[in-house]
């Protein structure tokens, strides 16, 4: 089994929900593999997005590149549909003036079909998410 970025849209993943959308900075930018493009939130928190892998995966490490995020919660589910999310990870980020936040999270029990990212607090009115990648394995190609 080969190790690669499970989140990439070029590998078949998809953002199936985002609570904010500016058509100039759409949520697809999170998983296009390019940190120069980003998704912005457009209002009050919490804000969230859901990544669908379209397969069963086992995530071992998450890397999140963002700006002005203060608290991030991550939930996961193994369902066919984006339902029954269970609480998984909660992180407080530090404020990185003028440069991207780069958070690497080693995770346990990363079996899932969908991941849900909830930004509950921010350091400013708006935040950006430039990249989310997940290192891990494909368990089964059926979701």
């Amino acid at each position, binding site marked *: 089994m080969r190790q690669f970025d499970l989140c990439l849209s070029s590998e078949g993943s998809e953002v199936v929900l985002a609570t904010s*959308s*500016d*058509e*100039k*900075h759409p949520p697809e930018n999170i998983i296009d593999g390019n*940190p*120069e493009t*980003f998704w*912005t939130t*457009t*209002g*009050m*928190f919490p804000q969230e997005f859901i990544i669908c892998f379209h397969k069963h995966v086992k995530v071992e490490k998450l890397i999140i590149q963002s*700006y002005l995020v203060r608290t991030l919660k991550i939930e996961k589910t193994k369902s066919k549909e984006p339902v029954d999310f269970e609480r998984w990870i909660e992180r407080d980020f530090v404020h990185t003036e*003028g*440069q*991207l936040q780069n958070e690497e999270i080693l995770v346990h029990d990363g079996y899932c079909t969908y991941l849900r990212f909830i930004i509950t*607090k*921010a*350091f*400013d*009115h*708006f935040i*950006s998410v*430039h990249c989310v990648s997940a290192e891990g394995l494909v368990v089964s190609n059926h979701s």
Partner: protein
Amino acid sequence: MVKLAAKCILAGDPTVGKTALAQLFRSDGVHFQNYTLTAGVDLVVKTVPVPDTGDSVELFIFDSAGKELFSEMLDKLWESPNVLCLVYDVTNEQSFNSCGKWLEKVRAQAPGTTLPGVLVGNKTDLAGRRAVDSAQAQAWALGQGLECFETSVKEMESYEAPFHCLAKQFHQLYRERVDAFHTLV
């Protein structure tokens, strides 16, 4: 086209006309009526277009009771505000003098961020009873970085301008932040 969403705190002493202003704005100036004092909080939601952009801002206006100035309840309700509408009554000097305290209370909820805001002097229809000078209010607002307006909710005068100004300021802030996001990589 983007639709922003802003939590707008409506603050000021009791009876200055906060509820009257918010309700008139909600009903597009359909009617002015008497309101009894607000208990707890009312929420008014309204979308305001930003001129020349195709964009808009959905304002979530939190109308709380003026008697709660020192209450801790507001600290929770006012968490993470985006914009501020500070109201006083031009016939009531005390209500103007309280504005500093209100401003402080709201700003304490948004440490380290810019909080766009407007100062609104209401009840200009009661011209004979005016106790707060426009120039005086303007000078104070300028010093605090607030845009200054006068309204008469009763006469349905200028009641939209403060909210349109807030929407515009918030939209401007969004543009500035997005420009900054572009420079990160």
